[in-house]
């Protein structure tokens, strides 16, 4: 490269930075006109705050039992959402339980995003036999309905929160890997990557500067849609007795232990499910909103 081309190159870089700023501004602009996504984001922020400050907000100790106050109805003085089969405060348990649910929703997806994303990008970028080896293994895991695989793995491992997380990571790697692979394959065949390759750029600089920037957004948007799935399946595992163990306040586990109480206090028994439903729906709507604001097509 001669000296005379340098200023030109700098102008190009500055212009692309301006385009970048313009893109994120337009994303924010579109989000500002999407009331559903904004309301859901606000609601999620409130839920996260309530869960983080659970010790300050919870009216009672979530583990404190009391035989004399078993299965009190919604609206009981001091127990706004009633009490469970052991007399524990439902509201306090839902607040503390949110910590486990939010963790089970985000952590497995984040780990699967790193592993599945890396595998998919490598498969898509190198193609050929590497792609074949990675993607055929993914096909096998993809051949299992996700809940079935999660139940099978945590059933064999033997329940517990750690095993639940492992099984969730395992079921999210294949779909994330597939999206990463197809996005990378598309980008790899674009002209600017060809040009970079022709100009002698190595694999790692091409990956870092040209591929990652273009594929991370679709993978992240896809993974954000999996958070609600993760929350629902994790609570489902606890509901089946495969996730968090008693007496931990987990929403799925609470639904399961309160099930016999549906004949005594039906609406108290349904409360933990309301929490799962609201959080899962908010994550779904936010993910949908982000997808259309970022104009990602899948």
């Amino acid at each position, binding site marked *: 490269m001669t000296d005379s081309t340098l200023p030109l190159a700098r102008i190009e870089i500055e212009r692309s930075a301006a385009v970048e700023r313009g893109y994120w501004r337009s994303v924010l602009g579109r989000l500002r006109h999407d009331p559903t996504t904004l309301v859901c984001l606000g609601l999620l922020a409130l839920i996260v705050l309530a869960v983080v400050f659970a010790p300050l907000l919870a009216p009672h100790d979530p583990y404190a039992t009391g035989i004399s106050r078993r299965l009190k109805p919604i609206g009981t003085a001091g127990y706004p959402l009633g009490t469970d089969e052991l007399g524990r405060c439902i509201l306090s348990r839902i607040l503390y339980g949110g910590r486990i649910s939010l963790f089970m929703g985000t952590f497995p997806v984040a780990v699967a995003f790193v592993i599945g994303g890396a595998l998919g990008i490598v498969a898509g970028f190198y193609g050929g036999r590497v792609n074949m080896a990675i993607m055929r293994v993914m096909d096998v895991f993809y*051949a299992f309905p*996700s*809940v079935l695989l999660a139940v099978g793995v945590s059933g064999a491992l033997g329940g517990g929160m750690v095993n639940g997380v492992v099984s969730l990571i395992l079921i999210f790697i294949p779909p994330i890997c597939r999206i990463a692979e197809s996005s990378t394959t598309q980008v790899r065949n674009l002209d600017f990557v060809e040009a970079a390759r022709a100009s002698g750029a190595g694999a790692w600089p091409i990956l870092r500067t040209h591929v990652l920037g273009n594929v991370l957004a679709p993978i992240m948007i896809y993974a954000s849609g999996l958070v609600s*799935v993760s929350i629902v399946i994790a609570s489902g595992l606890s*509901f089946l*007795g495969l996730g968090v163990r008693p007496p931990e306040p987990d929403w799925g586990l609470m639904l399961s232990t309160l099930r016999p109480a549906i004949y005594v206090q039906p609406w108290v028994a*349904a409360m933990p499910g309301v929490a799962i*439903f609201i959080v899962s*729906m908010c994550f779904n709507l936010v993910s*949908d909103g982000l997808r259309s604001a970022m104009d990602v097509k899948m």
Partner: protein
Amino acid sequence: MLYYILRRILYAVPIALGVSIVCFSLVYLAPGDPLQTLLPDDTPPEAVAELKAKYGFDRPVPMQYLFWLGNVLTGDFGTSIGTGRPVIEEIGRALSNTLLLGACAVAVAFTLAIIIGGVGGYLHGKVSDKVVTSIAIFGVSVPNYWLGIILVIVFAVELNLLPAVGMGKSGSQGFGLDLESLKYLILPTITLALVPLGIIARTVRASVAEVLGHEFVQTLRAKGLSERGVLRHVVKNAAAPVLAVMGLQFGHLIGGSIVVETVFSWPGTGFLLNNAILRRDVPILQGTILVLALMFVLTNLLVDLLQTTLDPRIRRA
């Protein structure tokens, strides 16, 4: 066409083998010696050694897999720890109940989804878009175990209209096509059908709206073809992507049935699986997962072949 079908079937074989390897490995995921998890604690050592030889646990792991695969292919899935009966018998009995529930859920979900999505796509307005999207969002967000509990609370506890759990007074044996038996089917069917209903309706709507926007539809109308004739073309063109989603949703139905059957104590494979987990009955766990996963592989194969028949462009891809 024949070449494509053969190629697609051949492609399913390594997938099925991969699925069998994963299921085989489940026993090794369990903590401790695989045989130890299959046997009661007080089994005498000589019996353990005999069983080790019988089930091939004294051989290297790849040999064990081939031995197990050979047994599975001849229909020997082992013996249940809980009941002592052959696993294949237990699964067979449960599978018929799951298939009954699954067939009802598929019929309800697919029919309603096609009607709701089709009408939504045909009207193609903001309101229909909102309605179908809301149903879809509700479907993907609602935990079906909770939905089942809510339906039981409303229809069994509060209104006392429908039975809460089970398959009738005399279990699955007494189940027939009479009104009394069918009442037991209603709540689990609705619970199982709602999630795929939302997702398929959304796909049908998008697919129909997209096909209606094509120029060939304008041409058909300009040529004076009746609306019914136009619809026939639209259905044919919109069917392929819808079929693909239906195939995937069938898998979700299989997965969903595990929790839904547990909520309703419906004596199917999901209920069997849940009991196997509680009793740590690994042969049942392994066998049930293998059978259900293979069913899913087979369904995907059928969907692919059907799609190709409907849309020959796929064959060339």
